[in-house]
């Protein structure tokens, strides 16, 4: 059974008390409501009315509810709380489709992207070498960064008209300050509900400072309590010219889900070492089904919410039961437009800090996933160049305007360009990386530094876990030391290290008597009294240090085989 990390209060399969569940549901809902802006923007681009925007949002609630449930069910989705939301990943291609062919083209192309993501989910296991953990971490970190940039734009009111005044700054400081203070120094319920309390504080401060516009209140009052979503816009169209951007978005969406689920797996298990591809594959399938459903019923593309995972990380509540409560409520909200409008009218000075809060956790989680592996210069380039190229889109707007039209779909967003670059570079740099490395050690000139460098360099080239390489380094150094000192090897020692994602095998072969690997530790007296005692201690430690070890002697040639699970 996985071990619960110290900062996690409720693991995915645990059930929090009703109060905690209720408050967490409200927080998750508040955070995802920020993304409801995307269907509105896309509907506006398609020339739609406020009525159309309202229908797109209501139907989005419906799809998010179904998607949240699919994603949380362990045998159907990933089994984690990482519900879908209308996603920024789909924004740029959807705006393009809206301009070219209105809402029908947006819906048709969204179905295409969803179906492609579903197909990708079936091939993920075979594609695993192309999606190593550092690329999943890169997607999570980039998502955190870009979400953080959006959050900062909202908070600072960049390009807002009218520009936010001092009162908005006060609201932002109060909102973010409350969230951070409660998360760092809060205890019990206050820590669990830090985002909700921060949002309430922000709403309260906005009201006190007169930040709500009369038009906001009028919109709220004019919205009916109960209303069926409209389906007048439900037509589909297809444009072959938009297949590439939507295909790229589908890949980016799959990578983002994989990153989110990897983060959830890591948060859920203190001893996490590698991504569980079954859970990821199901999660990507659930995400693809959700996006397909979004296109079919008449709303915009969905993707697993990174801020939701960030919130789970911040509060320590990963329980999938939250999704079981959240899902039916969201379906209900599809028929209660006033509630949706209340969240939709969230002031930017509240929404921005809330998004910034969760983006911070996403970014750091991404860094941690990337740092869990040894990185050589190839992998450094994969990560560094991809991040920098991705960020260039945000830092240097317009810099890629003169690139050919066929490559433009990749240049729409850092969340698309970064992962695409990483996949290409990873594929390129995999060429020439040998899975088996060899070293010859002369007994008369043992150089401990070169033995360490052999394991470190090989591990970095493979992207192996540091702790496994450390254990292998000790086993190799100790075995060479004891063989040279006490087995009188004839000729050089042949070292071979082989790696795949699941295991590391190290082989030390020499001409001479075999090494004893006792199961019992020699006594302290034996160790002190003789070299034989010290040799037996070495053998005992080598036996315990590897997951499996074997000493073989055949025709005067001895081989020690170390196996490490990876």
């Amino acid at each position, binding site marked *: 059974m996985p071990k619960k990390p110290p900062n996690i209060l409720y693991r995915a399969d645990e059930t929090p008390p009703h109060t905690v569940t209720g408050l967490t549901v409200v927080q998750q809902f508040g955070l995802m409501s920020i993304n409801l802006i995307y269907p509105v923007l896309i509907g506006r681009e398609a020339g739609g009315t406020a009525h159309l925007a309202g229908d797109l949002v209501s139907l989005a609630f419906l799809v998010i509810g179904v998607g949240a449930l699919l994603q949380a069910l362990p045998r159907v989705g990933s089994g984690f709380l990482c519900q879908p939301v209308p996603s920024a990943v789909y924004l740029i291609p959807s705006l393009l489709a809206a301009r070219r062919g209105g809402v029908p083209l947006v819906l048709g192309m969204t179905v295409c992207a969803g179906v492609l993501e579903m197909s990708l989910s079936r091939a993920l296991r075979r594609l695993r070498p192309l999606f190593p953990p550092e690329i999943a971490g890169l997607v999570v970190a980039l998502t955190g960064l870009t979400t953080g940039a959006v959050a900062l734009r909202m908070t600072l009111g960049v390009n807002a008209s009218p520009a936010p005044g001092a009162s908005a700054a006060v609201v932002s400081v109060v909102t973010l300050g409350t969230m951070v203070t409660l998360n760092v120094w809060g205890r019990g319920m206050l820590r669990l509900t830090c985002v909700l309390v921060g949002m309430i504080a922000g709403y309260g401060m906005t009201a006190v400072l007169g930040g709500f516009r009369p038009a906001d209140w009028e919109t709220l009052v004019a919205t009916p309590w109960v209303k069926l979503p409209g389906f007048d816009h439900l037509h589909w169209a297809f444009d072959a010219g938009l297949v590439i951007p939507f295909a790229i978005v589908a890949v980016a969406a799959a990578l983002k889900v994989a990153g989110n689920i990897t983060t959830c797996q890591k948060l859920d298990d203190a001893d996490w070492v590698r991504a569980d591809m079954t859970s990821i594959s199901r999660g990507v399938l659930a995400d693809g089904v959700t996006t397909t459903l979004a296109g079919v019923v008449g709303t915009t593309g969905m993707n697993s919410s990174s801020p939701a995972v960030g919130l789970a990380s911040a509060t320590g509540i990963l329980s999938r039961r939250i999704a079981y409560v959240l899902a039916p409520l969201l379906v209900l909200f599809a028929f209660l437009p006033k509630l949706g409008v209340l969240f939709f009218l969230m002031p930017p000075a509240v929404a921005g800090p809330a998004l910034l809060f969760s983006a911070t956790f996403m970014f750091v989680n991404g860094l941690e996933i990337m740092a869990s592996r040894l990185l050589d210069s190839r992998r450094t380039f994969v990560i560094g160049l991809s991040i920098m190229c991705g960020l260039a889109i945000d830092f240097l707007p317009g810099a890629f305007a003169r690139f050919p039209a066929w490559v433009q779909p990749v240049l729409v967003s850092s969340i698309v360009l970064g992962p695409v670059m990483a996949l290409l570079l990873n594929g390129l740099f995999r060429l020439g990386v040998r899975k088996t490395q060899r070293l010859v050690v002369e007994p008369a000139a043992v150089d401990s530094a070169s033995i360490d460098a052999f394991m470190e360099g090989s591990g970095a080239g493979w992207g192996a876990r540091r702790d496994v390489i450390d254990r292998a380094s000790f086993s190799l*150094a100790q075995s060479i*030391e004891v063989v040279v*000192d006490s087995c009188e090897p004839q000729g050089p020692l042949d070292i071979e290290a082989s790696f795949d994602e699941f295991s590391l095998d190290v082989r030390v072969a020499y001409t001479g008597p075999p090494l004893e690997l006792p199961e019992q530790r020699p006594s302290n007296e034996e160790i002190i009294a003789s070299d034989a*005692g010290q040799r037996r201690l070495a053998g005992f430690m080598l036996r315990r240090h590897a997951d499996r070890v074997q000493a073989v002697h055949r025709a005067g040639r001895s081989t020690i085989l170390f196996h490490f699970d990876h």
Partner: protein
Amino acid sequence: MELLEEQITGVTALVVRGRVDSTTAPTFGQRLESVIAVPKSRLVVDFRELEYISSAGFRVLLVAAKRAEDAGSRLILCSLSAKVRQLFDLGGFLDLFTIAASRDDAILAAS
């Protein structure tokens, strides 16, 4: 391997830097011996910069602990990294030595 010796309020603190293996263990053993052979002496061995210790190094430590006991001296180890602590654990040495979390704790315990 590099050994750095310091006197702190009557306690000898020995910082071990690098690797203790069959090549360097004799030098390490001689330095330990030179301190703890003095009756009632107090020695803190600081492992914060230790990269590797093999069975040869553990043997030297066992010998030193026995000498210290015979001479009425105190031998305290401190600042083991997670990697080195794991080796002590694998070899069954964690309970055989007095091990402090930091050098300050070790000096306090030795004083």
